[in-house]
């Protein structure tokens, strides 16, 4: 199709419909994006960029007397709201106080401790005035450990045992106290021998007390060949298409694998001989039927089921219909904001966020729910160790991989502490994680990883 160059306009010329058609309709409503390239016409619809910003400077309020309850925007060069409206605010700081309600406060409900809040900028399409811009807090979603069986393990059960009572699948029954989406489950696993294959978890309804065989949700498949062989450890299984489960209803989490059946080379799931979980128990599937796991292999298996809560939309005050999220802010167990400062989406903690002091030599999962917000997060961390050691940290879901932990590549990050003069502290390369978790371990000694900040 040939391009007809638009007719040059002359000064003072009236652009009537017929005149405009010579440029647009005459070219079949195509837009030419370059005057030099052949065939470089773009045939899509013009779309506005929405919900983006640049030049943002936001932090807990710089006045220490109000920093516990207020977050302030100190600068914002340009912002595009959810509807594509562009603002260049000029009046700063823009402040919200979580103890207040509505614009400049909390969108609904009451302030909650140990809770993440999303800090939004809101505006009015009716005026499109920068003088109408306000900030507001909205409670973030959280992953609530609804039910679990965490009694220290004293036995285990191998998956895909070949003889005796075959275990093509192993299940643990559970019930929720809170209805909701289950996006991940942690269970304790270890590898025995050179397993080659994958393992995964399904959530299934209960039929006559046993798993139905029809998954309500299926987790990511994990590489069984790179699991640790030292001890069972909590391993996080993520359900990308999560099931929404009811409270007080019997369900089963079902561990499955595709490696060859073997009595000596398999993946084991930690359990407790005496059991004691009230709302379900361990069962084996021998390829035909389900039956209770033999007592010595554990009446119950170890697990933690997390329910996603408070996943609600921002409630805009009357008159406001534009919004954009500017920052996450953590309200700690004393209902004080954890001090932070941020440029664009890069957040830096202003107080020490120690993950802990760890001596474990196997990938150990950490709960970072008070340190990083939900979502895909890039984490910045440092660590120290008083010993000559390899110190590791990596994200969810990949950090169970001992290869990743061992060499710090493939998504993980590591530091060798030599404890030579002045070198006992080190900075990890940033790592990516999700669901507010991370795996960490140390080759020897005791490391103390500290999260210095994150990018959301």
């Amino acid at each position, binding site marked *: 199709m040939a391009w007809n160059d638009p007719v040059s306009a002359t000064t003072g010329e009236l652009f009537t419909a017929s005149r405009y058609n010579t440029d647009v309709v005459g070219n079949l409503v195509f837009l030419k994006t370059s005057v030099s390239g052949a065939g470089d016409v773009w045939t899509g619809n013009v779309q506005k960029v929405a919900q983006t910003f640049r030049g943002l400077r936001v932090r807990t309020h710089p006045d220490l007397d109000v920093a516990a309850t207020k977050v302030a925007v100190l600068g914002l060069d340009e912002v595009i709201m959810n509807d594509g409206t562009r603002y260049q605010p000029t009046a700063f700081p823009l402040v919200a106080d979580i103890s207040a309600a509505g614009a400049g406060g909390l969108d609904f409900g009451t302030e909650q401790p140990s809770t993440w809040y999303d800090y939004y900028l809101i505006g009015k399409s009716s005026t499109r005035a920068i003088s109408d811009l306000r900030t507001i807090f909205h409670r973030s979603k959280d992953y609530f450990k609804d039910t679990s069986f965490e009694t220290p393990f004293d036995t285990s059960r191998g998956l895909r045992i070949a003889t005796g009572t075959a275990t093509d699948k192993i299940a643990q029954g559970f019930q929720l106290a809170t209805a909701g989406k289950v996006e991940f489950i942690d269970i304790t696993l270890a590898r025995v021998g050179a397993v080659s294959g994958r393992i995964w978890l399904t959530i299934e309804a209960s039929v006559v007390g046993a798993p139905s065989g029809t998954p309500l949700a299926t987790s990511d498949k994990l590489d069984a060949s790179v699991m640790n062989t030292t001890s069972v450890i909590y391993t996080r299984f993520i359900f990308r298409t999560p099931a929404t489960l009811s409270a007080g209803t019997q369900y089963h989490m079902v561990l499955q694998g595709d490696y060859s059946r073997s009595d000596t080379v398999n993946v084991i799931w930690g359990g407790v001989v005496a059991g004691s979980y009230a709302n379900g128990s361990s069962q084996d599937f021998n390829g035909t039927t389900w039956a209770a796991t033999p007592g010595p292999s554990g009446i119950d298996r170890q697990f933690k089921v997390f329910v996603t809560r408070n996943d609600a939309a921002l409630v805009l005050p009357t008159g406001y219909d534009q919004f954009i999220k500017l920052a996450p802010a953590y309200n700690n167990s004393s209902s004080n904001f954890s001090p932070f400062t941020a440029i664009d989406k890069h957040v830096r903690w202003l107080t020490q966020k120690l993950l802990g002091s760890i001596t474990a030599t196997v990938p150990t999962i950490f709960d970072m729910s008070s340190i990083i917000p939900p979502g895909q997060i890039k984490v910045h961390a440092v660590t120290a160790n008083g010993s000559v050691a390899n110190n590791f940290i990596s994200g969810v879901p990949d950090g169970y991989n001992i290869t990743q932990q061992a060499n710090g590549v493939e998504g993980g990050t590591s530091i060798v502490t*030599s404890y030579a003069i002045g070198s006992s502290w080190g900075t990890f390369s940033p790592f990516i994680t999700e669901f507010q978790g991370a795996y960490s371990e140390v080759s020897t000694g005791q490391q103390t990883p500290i999260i210095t900040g994150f990018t959301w």
Partner: protein
Amino acid sequence: MAVSKWIYTKSTGQFTRGGFYDPPYDPESEGVVEFQDDDPNPDVRLDRFDPVRGKRPATAQEIAAYDAAAFEAQSAAQLHSDPALTCGFLALHTHIIGRIPTEAEQADVFRLAKAFYSAFMIVKIFPLPPSATSGIQVTVEP
């Protein structure tokens, strides 16, 4: 709600490890205590387990005992992490006596190297006065 779990030694109340994970522990000799996220981590030097409040300030004697143990452990860690100095002492001693040192003499050399690192730890922990920024002299008494 994230809670931080810390392990302490039952006999002393000394915190040993913990954080935002499930640290394994020996229930015979160790206990576990949870802290909220506004003050999630005890100071292993300055805090001890308290059954009512979770933690209490350590006594002067407890801090002194901790410092002594930490000093010993860190000096030993330095010694093991940097064997070159020990090798240097050993080579010098071998040169002076003109033969391979006996095991007892080697042990003396190791003690000397450790004493050096103890002195180093003192300098590291207690900064020297400004006037000593050049020509640092440390007296070592093995």
